[in-house]
């Protein structure tokens, strides 16, 4: 195959399925849609791909107010109006007021880049549909100037979603999809070791035991995620707490559990369980 294969990085462990999905998406030049619980490493994946394949990473963070157009370019009319009013600039060339967004930059890049469209489901329901054409053809037009750009190097597009909104079928059909499962204990142990290379085995074992116990409590509404586990282990180690202590109590519970009702649920369960 003519392109470099994504293999994961030292700090980003990748399952074979996810690795294959990334490579398929690269090969077929289709966007890769990643879903999964918060903290399963959706966003970091794009960074890992960029690092692993030695490509530049462009990030487009989606907010509830983001419009598809902004990803391509923004025609800064306010700046132009301002310049016109105070007359200290030549405003005849409107190209200087066309500011490319992350998607526009990715399509105009001189080499293949990685474009991360982060949390696409935050935006309006119609947002993904507005991107269909650009993602399909990898080209866009600037209507103000009549310029038309087609990507010479189709970017690797990684899209993440937290599943807050259903994405439209037409959009989904064009993507490669992968759902990142929450890591099992063994994988999680590997992930923790990446961040805490010298962690004691017994401490790790006890911490994982506690962590999965917490996650499996049906009353806990906001289940702790990977990054919270890593923080928690950091807190425990810095606090010099022993593995035996974790077995008996839950030190620094606030790192894992963030909601009052969840804390109560955990305490109640500890008492009876």
């Amino acid at each position: 195959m003519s392109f470099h294969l994504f293999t994961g990085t030292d700090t980003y462990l990748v399952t074979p399925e996810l690795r294959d999905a990334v490579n398929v998406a690269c090969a077929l030049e289709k966007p890769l849609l990643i879903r999964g619980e918060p903290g399963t490493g959706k966003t970091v994946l794009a960074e890992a791909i960029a690092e692993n394949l030695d490509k530049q990473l462009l990030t487009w963070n989606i907010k509830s107010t983001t419009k598809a157009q902004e990803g391509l370019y923004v025609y800064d009319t306010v700046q132009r109006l301002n310049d016109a009013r105070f007359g200290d600039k030549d405003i005849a060339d409107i190209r200087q007021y066309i500011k490319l967004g992350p998607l526009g930059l990715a399509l105009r890049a001189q080499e293949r880049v990685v474009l991360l469209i982060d949390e696409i489901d935050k935006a309006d329901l119609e947002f993904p549909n507005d991107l269909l054409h650009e993602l399909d053809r990898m080209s866009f037009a600037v209507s103000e100037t009549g310029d038309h750009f087609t990507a010479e190097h189709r970017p690797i597009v990684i899209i993440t979603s937290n599943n807050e909104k259903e994405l439209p079928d037409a959009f989904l059909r064009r993507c490669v999809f992968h759902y990142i499962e929450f890591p099992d204990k063994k994988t999680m142990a590997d992930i923790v070791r990446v961040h805490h290379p010298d962690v004691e085995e017994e401490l790790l074992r006890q911490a994982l035991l506690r962590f999965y116990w917490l996650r499996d409590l049906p009353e806990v509404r906001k289940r702790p995620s990977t990054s919270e586990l890593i923080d928690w282990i950091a807190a425990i180690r810095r606090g010099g707490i022993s593995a035996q202590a974790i077995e008996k109590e839950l030190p620094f519970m606030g790192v894992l559990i963030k909601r009052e009702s969840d804390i109560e649920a955990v305490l109640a369960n500890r008492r009876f369980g």
Partner: protein
Amino acid sequence: MFVDFFYHLRDFGLKVSSTEWLALMQALCAGHARANLNTFYHLARCLLVKRESDYDTYDRAFASYFAGIEATADVSQELLEWLQNPKLPNISEEDRQKMRAFDLDELASRFRELLEEQKERHDGGNRWIGTGGTSPFGHGGEHPTGVRVGGAGGGRSAVQVAGSRRFRNLRSDRILDTRQISIALRRLKRLDKDQGPEELDLDGTIDQSARNGGEIELVFGPPRRNRIKLLLLMDVGGSMDPYTHLCERLFSAAHAANHFKKFEYRFFHNCVYKRLYTDMHQLKGDLTSEVLKKLDHTWSVVFVGDAWMAPTELTHSGGAIGFDDYNSVAGLDWLRRIRQRVPNSIWLNPESHGHWNEPSIRLIRHVFPMFELTIDGLTEAVDVLRGTRPNRPSAHPARRVGK
């Protein structure tokens, strides 16, 4: 023959499009399956299935299609060879029509024979068919266990992985969690211009400034706010006990949703009679007639209950069991009054469709449109309340039960 798999998936209800199928063919041609059924399982999944809620359906389809293939070495060998080097025409848009055409006859027939054989052998104790309880509506206490086991373990075959159905509880017709409920409820919006301090109307400002030839003129307008007023009426106790957890989640999601103009809740037992409760344990509450007085057609009422009771509890005065002493007005008449007062009212039922032929449920479906308390059901219900779906109770209560 491989196109059979495409139709097989579609028969299972996966909306696989020909575009996606062609993408899979492209990937196969490029050697992405790496002559391996496991890799093929993941490859086909990432290209054909776009929702984790469909993973379970895919698993079932995959396992039933490929069941037994690995058991017979030479056939799997042939399949692997085919996957390694699929003899496919170069697929272009125009070849779409030809998609049905490519088949590998010999392999196909052997494949089929084997499948037939396998079917017979598997019908009895196959885990697949045996799991039968695909009905997502177990009792409240039932939590499918072992879902998160498995993972990236290398040794498991694709059919085993598919067979373990790890994604069962991602199915969208399963019961919901709070977050999913909030998302469904968030769609319950009716934006209207509201009174209050005026906000800058940006579009108007730009328009007006342009008309003024660049002289900036600020335009203000009234803000838009959600006008939904929601009353949640929940059945508690008795036959609803198994669903307590589910109802709590709905309740907390609705309570946390801050986009309603007004949100009220009351409890009842089996059916609404002359009192509605704010606290079921201490029997604190208001007269139903008083609550009704505060409501009008601008409100929406959502009932949550299994609607499962003796029909007399609905139809007879004095039919109430439990909290109300003696009801002179029959339960069904109370329900009709509420429906009359607030036409925008629906019933969510945690019981599955399959039980909706129960006499008491049929009676209530006659008064309110009824939906299952699942993501799909809640979405439909929200559509009724938003007015984008006809608000009709079942005309013939016995008609069409189950999907």
